[in-house]
């Protein structure tokens, strides 16, 4: 499509993070000099530039079957081991950066309205732009160190943006929780880097080198487990999922961008690179077995998250939290897809099976980014009108006063539920098919994949149910407006509704354009270390089952919430438990958080009030023995100093005399 030389692509690749970074620096400077109201313009131009370059890169690399490596210098080196500023640009990276910068652009525009007149505008837009730059670095990274830079960079931006309203105690607590829980995963990722570095004998952890080096299957297993833990932390999968719902304390556009569309999908992206990459073209059974067992764990965690988060979403009253749990659940879906591994006896090679699984996960990642960003921005528009109230018990029937927001939310909800022909339908279907085919293959894991398939199907039903529960509670029924909204509850200004409409159009069409036409499949064939086999779109059993599950869920929500007592708990005790997040947060608090804090305080006390006095006591023993020299120990600091100085002079004099 685009004919750009390799050098050109390398330069453009560097510009993808560089332009938003320049935007971030400009925003920070504007903020410092009290021109904060111009920050949206600076951020918007930086991100727009990033989007243009990302699009150019995506279009020009799509047909290159070799990834393009750009090395922009050395970060640090030990002996001959150099860790380079290395990017690896291929179709997947192109598609991901294009998606991220596109959504960021509309979210920056939305924020210009949403954050209007906030005193910290400069800081806000600087951090959002910095986030886009870090996310681009994460996606384009050519080695694990550069990946880690982006990985931690997005984490820090997320931390600072969740705690953006730092005067709010909930926001500060949520920011700390987000940082610490993801930190657990980050340490695992660091551990994987150390493990791989020690066994490859080098700090040069370029993907190509990691994938192509012969490694002991045990090392493959443990390094992938560590990478998986990292992904689980970042993508908020069970059991490290607790930070994401709390992170909703940040500004809503941030929830849309970071905690729904982009950063939280980094774990999926990492595994979509590493599972097929580590499988490789080899037919070495122990190695394949090592990779497949890690994929099994990923699938198990994904299934647990998809199901549990969907259950938790059923009982939430906070609109943004419903969406947050649904994000967890959908990310669990992607993890489930990644679980599908091949078998040497299959007609498709293990690499082909893993690649198809990764493709399904990435397809869902892309469509999910559009409709989930849409849903979050719509809920932001609701919040904007409702005076920052987000409890669904306090408002209803908003369809009448927020017509555009209502229409956009409905499109997002239908897409999330997986109703044909919206985007979520096609990508969810792809995941169901991958699981279904895994269940009917000759693989020894086929029974496991079948179980995953049925969990996915049931989760699809729950998804449709809780999404439309939220929809009916918010937009249908009698008009009710909270006091905080005042009497001027109205539709948001154009700067906020235009992004909604654009994203709604994407949520409507992206699936249809990318899925059944095979264009995304064709585009991602160029992804490095992937090998996609031919597949054609056809109506199949999983697709019908998935559609039935979605429609059943919507129907049930309609029955329960469109007419009856709106605040009932139709599911009784289960709903109470779901509202309390299945008590997982409370268990963590009791088992980990509080004991650790107690240990810290006890240690501090022990060190200050017990250990130090004990040392003092030991020190009195020689003092008692040397009682006769007590007169020397007169406690006068000046005397000690004088004695010391004199002693040293004597020593120095000795040398000179001895000479």
């Amino acid at each position, binding site marked *: 499509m685009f004919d750009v030389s390799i050098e050109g692509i390398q330069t453009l690749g560097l510009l993808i993070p560089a332009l938003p970074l320049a935007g971030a620096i400009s925003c920070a400077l504007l903020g410092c000099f009290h021109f904060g109201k111009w920050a949206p313009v600076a951020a918007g131009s930086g991100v727009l530039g990033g989007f243009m370059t990302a699009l150019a890169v995506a279009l020009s690399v799509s047909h290159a079957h070799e990834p393009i490596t750009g090395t922009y210098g*050395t*970060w*640090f*080196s*030990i*002996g*001959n*081991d150099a860790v380079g500023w290395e990017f690896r640009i291929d179709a997947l990276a192109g598609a991901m950066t294009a998606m991220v910068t596109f959504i960021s652009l509309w979210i920056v525009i939305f924020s210009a309205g949403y954050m209007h007149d906030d005193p910290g505008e400069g800081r806000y837009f600087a951090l959002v732009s910095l986030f886009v730059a870090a996310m681009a670095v994460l996606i384009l990274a050519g080695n694990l*160190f550069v990946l880690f*830079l982006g990985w*931690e*960079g997005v984490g*820090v931006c997320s931390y600072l943006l969740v*705690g953006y309203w*730092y*005067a709010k*105690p909930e*926001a*500060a607590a949520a*920011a*700390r929780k987000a*940082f*610490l829980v993801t*930190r657990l995963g980050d*340490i695992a990722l*660091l*551990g994987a880097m*150390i*493990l791989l*570095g*020690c066994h490859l*004998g*080098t*700090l040069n952890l370029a993907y190509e080198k990691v994938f192509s080096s012969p490694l002991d299957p045990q090392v493959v297993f443990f390094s992938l487990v560590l990478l998986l833990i990292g992904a689980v932390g970042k993508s908020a999968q069970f059991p490290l999922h607790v930070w994401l719902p709390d992170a909703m304390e940040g500004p809503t556009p941030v929830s849309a961008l970071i905690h729904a569309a982009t950063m939280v999908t980094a774990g999926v992206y990492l595994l979509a690179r590493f599972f097929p990459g580590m499988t490789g073209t080899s037919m070495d059974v122990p190695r394949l077995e090592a990779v497949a067992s890690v994929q099994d764990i990923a699938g198990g965690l994904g299934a647990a998250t998809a199901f549990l988060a969907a259950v938790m979403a059923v009982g939430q009253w906070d609109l943004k939290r419903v969406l947050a749990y649904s994000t967890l659940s959908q990310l669990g879906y992607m993890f489930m897809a990644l679980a599908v591994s091949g078998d040497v006896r299959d007609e498709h090679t293990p690499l082909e099976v893993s690649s198809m699984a990764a493709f399904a996960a990435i397809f869902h990642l892309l469509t999910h980014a559009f409709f989930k960003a849409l849903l979050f921005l719509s809920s932001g528009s609701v919040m904007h009108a409702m005076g920052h109230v987000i409890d669904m018990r306090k408002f209803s029937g908003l369809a009448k006063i927020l017509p555009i927001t209502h229409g956009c939310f409905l499109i997002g909800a239908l897409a999330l539920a997986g109703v044909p022909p919206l985007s979520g339908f096609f990508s969810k279907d792809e995941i169901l098919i991958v699981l279904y085919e895994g269940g009917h293959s000759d693989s020894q894991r086929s029974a496991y994949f079948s179980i995953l398939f049925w969990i996915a199907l049931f989760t699809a039903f729950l998804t449709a149910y809780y999404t439309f529960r939220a929809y009916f509670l918010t937009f249908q029924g009698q008009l009710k407006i909270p006091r905080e909204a005042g009497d001027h509850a109205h539709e948001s200004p154009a700067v906020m509704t235009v992004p909604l409409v654009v994203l709604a159009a994407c949520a409507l069409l992206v699936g249809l354009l990318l899925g059944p036409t095979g264009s995304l499949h064709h585009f991602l064939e160029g992804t490095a270390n992937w090998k996609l086999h031919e597949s054609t779109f056809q109506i199949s059993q999983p697709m019908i089952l998935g559609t039935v599950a979605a429609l059943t869920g919507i129907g049930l929500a309609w029955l329960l919430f469109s007419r009856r007592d709106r605040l009932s708990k139709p599911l009784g005790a289960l709903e109470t438990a779901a509202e309390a997040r299945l008590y997982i947060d409370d268990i963590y608090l009791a088992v980990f958080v509080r004991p650790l804090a107690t*240990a*810290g*305080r*006890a*240690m*501090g*006390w022990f*060190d200050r009030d017990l*250990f*130090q006095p004990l*040392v*003092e006591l030991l*020190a009195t023993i020689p003092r008692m023995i040397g009682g006769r020299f007590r007169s020397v120990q007169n*406690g006068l*600091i000046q005397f*000690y*100093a004088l004695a*010391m*100085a004199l002693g*040293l002079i004597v020593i*120095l004099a*000795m*040398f*000179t005399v*001895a*000479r």
Partner: protein
Amino acid sequence: MLNTANLLILLPLIPLLGAIGCFCLYRQKALAVYLAETLMLVALALGTIVTWDYSRQSPALAAAERGKDQSFTAIDITMGRLAERGPVVSLTLAIDGLNTWLVFLTLVVGTTVVASGSGWTGDKAGPAMGLILLAISLTILAFMSMDMLVFYVFFELTLVPVFLLIGLWGGPDRVLASQRMFLHTLAGGLCTLLGLLTVAGATGSFAWDSLNAHRPGASESAIDPSLIFLLLMAGFIVKTPLVPFHTWQAIAYREAPTPITVFLSAVMAKLGLYGMLRLGVYVLPGEMESVGAPVLGGMAVASIVVGALCAFGARDLKTLLAYSSLSHLGYVVLGIVSLDQAGEQGAIFHMVAHGIVTTGLLLAAGFIEESEGTLERSRLRGLLAKYPVTSGLFVFFSLASVGVPGLSQFVGEFLCLFGFFRSGVASWLGIAAIAGVMSGLFLGAWYTMTLIQVSFSGESGAGSVPVPARPRQLAILGSIAVLVVWMGMAPGLVLETSRPEINKLETRLRSLSAADARHHAVLAGLDRAKPE
């Protein structure tokens, strides 16, 4: 072109002259402060030129043939013998790969300490500035000494000005704090002196180089070399400090005036680590491997965990930062005991990085203290709303200190850990040590983020107006922030400087008889990293 080596002698000399000047200006408070600031800026400028010049030549020297003198020597005077046929003592001051950036660090920290304000000195600014300049000068002399005994003398002498500064200008418990620090470090230091005399008695010289050539203690001395090693290390363990010899640290850091805490934590703790590196790794590498790895490594792991837990429980900000220092320097010790190229270079890098970041943290805390009047954690609330700039920079330095890549600490911490694992010391120490080290990475973030949540976030209280940072404070913290980003994004210059010296270590390790398998592993690790 001017030979920068000629400037070298000015680095310790300028602060020393400044100290004398400040003592003479006993009654002229403003003039003494002005003199100290001007001279430190001059010294820093000269130091930057010398460091820059040396660092840029260092990789080239590494490529040149080994054995060639790779250091800049400032002065080389033979002073005499300790006894009639005893070891020679010489006053040799030089910079090489190991100490160049530590000298630079001392100048940076010294300048910021002097420039950060003299409100704490009361009406005795002259003597206080004089003592600080004396401490700076003595520290630089200690870092530059190429003779063990001279190093030891300066190493111990640095204690005197700091002891006086705490004792005369410290908090309510200053006498206890200064005495405790003095007695602890002196006790450790005397053990080191004993060790030094034994080693020198065996080799006939106190110079590092001659010590490198011999293997002391093996045949000549009847005393067990591992005992000599532990004696030598005792002073450094206490100075750094490491658990369980850290009991002087928290109270001393807390009671010292904040600029002195900065100096203690950022620079003087590094003297201990530098001693471990120079004496432990270079003079007794065999013992460092057999005794140092379990003893120092074990203490380092304990320091990492205990320090982090205590930091959480600390009642005031300075104590918290003291424990945080204890915890972070544990990683440097892991790098030192690894005897691995990545570990050693990372250890030196991490010393400098930690010095810079901890200066930023403590100075920001000090600026907050000036306005708040306290650093008690129970009374610090909503600092970000009250002091947006200073607190914002504190948060920035905190992120650096938890090891966010792109900021200075990450590279050092990673390389120390990498060396620790690659050399096999980690697997040798066992799963508990590995768990401790890795959990330390989490615990560090845990107490830092808790501090930010509780003390920095939240409402500022009714009616309070944000206080902007003063231009001087902003300039100091801003320049430190620039250094933090520079060291994180372009660590090459600092990291590469130590390469030639670390390569010498390789030669030295080769010359030792390699008995056990782990030793071979170390050599294999160096082989892989060896330049072609």
